[in-house]
């Protein structure tokens, strides 16, 4: 049976396509894509489509995509109605807690205000530390919020830490390690198990190979 795979657009997409290519999948159409959004595999009975990270979960939960590749950050913030079957070990980064130098939000007693694009992640992390927390949702340049005094700290994704440093922010803790995951629609897994397991084991082989080299 044919498989539909939703890939998260951008950086993850490139790394995922590289992995698929190395496993012998026919991903050529994804290399010169123009404005198209759906791409048939040239060797296997698979079609790929490119979506934004949040939409990847939605497509998989509805079974429109059988399989999705999406960052753990998005999974942590969104719904949970799917199987999370593989860590691709690409797109590695972290959720961090940061604040101004000398002002660790974790040491503040009483009410803490945190700015984040990921309110659920921030809430869960601070609740697990038993803190009284209020999250203010910020959509872009989260680093600005503590600098201007809107919040006591932020929970955000960090890759290199350069932006944080430039704005005088200090990392106080890691809330979670992140990387790209393969998620699978539950009903698809029942009806197309052989095809899906073949894909997973191909990709798993690549992950192991990359670890060893």
């Amino acid at each position: 049976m044919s498989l539909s795979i939703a890939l998260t657009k951008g950086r993850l997409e490139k790394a995922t396509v590289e992995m698929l290519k190395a496993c012998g999948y026919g991903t050529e159409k994804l290399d010169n894509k123009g404005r198209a959004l759906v791409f048939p595999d040239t060797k296997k009975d698979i079609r790929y489509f490119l979506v934004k990270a949040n939409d990847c979960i939605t497509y998989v939960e509805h079974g429109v995509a059988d399989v999705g590749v999406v960052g753990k950050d998005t999974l942590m913030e969104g719904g949970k109605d799917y199987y999370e079957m593989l860590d691709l070990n690409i797109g590695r980064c972290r959720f961090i807690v940061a604040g101004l130098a000398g002002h660790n939000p974790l040491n503040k007693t009483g009410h803490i205000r945190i700015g984040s694009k990921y309110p659920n992640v921030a809430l869960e992390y601070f609740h697990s530390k038993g803190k009284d927390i209020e999250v203010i949702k910020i959509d872009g340049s989260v680093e600005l919020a503590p600098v201007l005094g809107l919040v006591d700290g932020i929970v955000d994704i960090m890759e290199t830490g350069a932006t944080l440093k430039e704005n005088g922010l200090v990392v106080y803790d890691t809330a979670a390690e992140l990387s790209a995951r393969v998620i699978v629609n539950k009903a698809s897994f029942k009806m197309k198990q052989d095809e899906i397991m073949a894909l997973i084991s191909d990709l798993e082989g690549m992950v192991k190979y990359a670890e060893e080299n």
Partner: protein
Amino acid sequence: MKQIQIPGGMRDLLAGECAAKEELRKRISAVYTAYGYQPVETPLIEFYSTYQNTFTSLKEETLYKFVDESGQILTLRTDMTLPIARVCVTRFGQDEVPLRFSYCSNVYKVRQNFAGKRNVVTDCGVELIGLDSTSDPEVLCCALDVMEALGDYEYTLEIGNSDFFRKAFTLSGISENDAAVLADLVDRKEMPALQTFVRSLDLSEEQTAFFTKLPLLCGRNALEKAKQVCFADELRQEVDSLMKLREILTQLGYGEKVTFDLGKVPHLDYYTGIIFEGYISGIGTSVLSGGRYDSLLSKLGRDMPAIGFGVKLDYLLETAPQPQTKIWKLFYPAEKAAEAMIEARKLRQEAPVEMIPWDKDIMEVVK
């Protein structure tokens, strides 16, 4: 212009969809009737406390709540199992078991906004109360007959057993709290986090391998694969009893339709034995689900085993064919109303007739 809207997750069903749903309901009910189940209806509204006291892991935000005139919190029923369990305990005596109930009712659940999810669905199911796991094959057979009756679909019924997991974690000395986390990871087949978590528990090599492989003990040869990773005889016995179950269902001609998934461990505080879900090709969620819940009735004050399952009709509507009924039109002049109705009565022997008054002074039938 401001339109009148309906609350999120709700929808109106119009003629074609209603007919499709009614057809499904009829087919399913016929199976239930044939198995000796008696229909039951319960109120749409229950006390919130009934749910709260029974389901320990109830997510409060998923229930519709309001307050009655005496200040008690009410809720729209979110399932039919609890209302029927309540009926059993309050309306029937201990010696009247086994009881077989069928239902076809709307159930309500608050779900994520803007995700294309339904907050009301029609649940069409059965509950068999007072018989232990000896009756599992009969109930599974009924579920398979229902899947068969839904129409010309490619389907599969997947069976798991929560006792398998329960025994495994008890034998490994895993605490209840850790087991709950573990069950969640296994059930969602969250492999990366599962591997990390299992390593953090103090387990033998065999047990570590068992729990890491558990989510993948599914599909073809699931039971054979399970047998290989079992680390105790108690676990092998559980697999054996599932193999016996498979044998029975194969004898009935359902061998190809049945698969097993031992990594299926949802709601560990609710299900106590077999659990099963039915899937149809082309629908992204399970359409039938059920299982054994031997400890539920004791929470309501009577210790009795029970098992049940239900079909969510609305999930099937996207693929269900819409039966077309031809309706004849009888046009008639207002002053000949009585005559027209006598004519319509005759025509209705053959087909449904709708009557439409008009200005002409003759009657006309459009077929």
